[in-house]
């Protein structure tokens, strides 16, 4: 009780910011510097860093500009999680410290480090270029400047949230697959790509989609939801990723890529058996040769442990499957009718 009361009335206290330091031109390896300063309740991490730079150690390097959560410059990892320093209250971080009273500040992950808390955004910008993250107008050149493009509210709603992105790269820093492979498209670029692809003013939808379904593209996302969970603007990034996938299957068909084939297999199996036929999933996704080459040694071990999924004829259909299949097919008719009316 006393502790809580104290916390409530306490206005100032000594807090340590443990800051990641590395200057590749001088240092052989990264290290941390501890800066203990008196901080008032209500002060942000960015203001604390500014104070340190002005009064304690001018060599600490970080990017910052608007101080209001608009420009996206001050993305960094605070107590292990990527966020904006300017919208993060020091007081809110105290309960998240691994060591009491020590807030750990590190640069964003998954991007090359320039110095201290500054990372190189160029690889991200290059990906935005690669995936054409801009609108290429479908208005004939003769009409440009003479006519307006009108966008309905319904159309705008599809990408309204995506336009909130300020490119702070928190999602990029938190991405599981980017950490596993630096060529991966990355969540921010997928979000932008989705936003451009649903824009009715755009002329290069199919070209962009063609790039997105290639290796290191949209199908490589592992649905971990870290990007969405850490988005400083609360953008449902996974909805955008799923939106691209839905579009890819609709426009390019379900036999187009291993990702699409894999996803479609769920639909087929549910209709047939109500259960996933796992034994043939690798073959249906990647073909026989890939499966033999990649999974045979493991399959042998699994056979020894009697862990292999049953072959298709032995997968027991869900009880009451006949009736369920009728409902499932009726829903297919609903979807077809809807697509037809959309095309009209």
């Amino acid at each position: 009780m006393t502790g809580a009361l104290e916390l409530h009335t306490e206005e100032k206290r000594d807090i340590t910011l443990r800051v990641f330091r590395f200057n590749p031109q001088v240092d052989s390896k990264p290290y941390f510097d501890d800066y203990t300063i008196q901080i008032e309740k209500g002060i942000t991490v960015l203001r604390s860093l500014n104070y340190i730079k002005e009064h304690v150690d001018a060599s600490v390097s970080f990017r910052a500009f608007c101080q209001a959560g608009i420009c996206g410059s001050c993305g960094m990892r605070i107590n292990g999680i990527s966020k904006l320093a300017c919208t993060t209250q020091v007081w809110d971080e105290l309960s998240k410290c691994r060591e009491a009273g020590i807030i750990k500040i590190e640069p964003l992950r998954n991007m090359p480090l320039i110095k201290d808390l500054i990372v190189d955004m160029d690889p991200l910008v290059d990906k935005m270029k690669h995936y054409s993250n801009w609108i290429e107008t479908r208005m004939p050149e003769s009409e440009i400047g003479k006519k307006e493009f009108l966008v309905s509210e319904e159309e705008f709603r599809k990408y309204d949230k995506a336009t909130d992105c300020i490119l702070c790269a928190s999602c990029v820093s938190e991405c599981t697959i980017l950490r596993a492979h630096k060529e991966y498209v990355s969540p921010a670029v997928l979000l932008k790509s989705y936003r451009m692809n649903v824009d009715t003013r755009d002329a290069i939808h199919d070209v962009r989609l063609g790039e997105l379904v290639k290796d290191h593209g949209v199908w490589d996302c592992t649905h971990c939801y870290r990007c969405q969970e850490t988005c400083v603007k609360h953008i449902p990034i996974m909805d955008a990723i799923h939106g691209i996938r839905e579009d890819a299957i609709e426009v390019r068909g379900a036999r187009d890529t291993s990702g699409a084939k894999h996803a479609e297999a769920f639909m087929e199996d549910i209709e047939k058996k109500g259960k996933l036929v796992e034994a043939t999933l690798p073959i249906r996704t990647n073909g026989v040769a890939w499966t033999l080459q990649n999974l045979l040694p493991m399959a042998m071990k699994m056979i020894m442990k009697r862990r292999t999924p049953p072959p298709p004829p032995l997968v027991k259909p869900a009880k009451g499957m006949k009736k369920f299949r009728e409902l499932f097919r009726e829903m297919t008719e609903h979807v077809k009718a809807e697509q037809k009316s959309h095309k009209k």
Partner: protein
Amino acid sequence: MKRYAYYLSCINESMTKEVDRSIDLWQKDLGLEFVKLHESTCCGGSNLDYVSPKHFALVNGRNIALAEKLGLDLVVSCNTCLMTIRTAKKKLDESPELKQEVNELLKKEGLEYRGTSNVRHLLWVLAEDVGFEAIRQKVKVPLKNYRIAPFYGCHILRPSTVLGKDDPLEPSTLDMMIEALGGTTLPYEHKNRCCGFHTLLVAEEESLNVAAEALEEAIEIKADFIVTPCPLCHTVLDGYQAKALKHANIHSSIPVFHLSEMVGLALGYTEKQLGIKRHIVT
């Protein structure tokens, strides 16, 4: 006895049969009764929602309606099934039109999705309905000699708008479960991270890198085993372990247990009874 409808996950019916087998062993010990829904179907494994959002709503509206017909909450022991079915529930609860469309079809099977049954993970039921204190009192063989790395997996935590039980970036329920069973839970950076399961067949190298990182840390912190509440995470961390560690040039190994097996061990069941000997890494 507390009763629940129990969802049959595809993977627990095929590759990880030990999950349901171990739950069957101890459910009565903890005053729980799980009624298996043999009519339930595959949830779509976080894929059906974008292949066909309408079928996704129908399939999972039906899965929940089966539990509602019994007047019971639906309990799930696979993270991805949990996230998927809860996502469908959210969509149905937020859209009266979608709910009506689904119910028009379900009517033909004598079912109705009303939104009355909650969809819960086995871990949540143990933590909330049985309680850690009650579990502690039931423990016959405390796991006191074990240092355990808790691997939560993604879809019991994120998206928090759909899951919302644990802090998605700093979860604690599984840690508390380990402590209740007498074990030592280790600080484990990868506890809230991904296992790589969902890209195993489309981006294998990436998945192996993801899995290797989680395994490497558990080995480094000298955990006796990893425990996970998700059979998909288990499939990667156990089944693909040798491949992932070879890929990362790490010469070691670490056992991976299901939540249901860890509970079973503390309640006095043997490794053989629980199916632990079926694991690839033993």
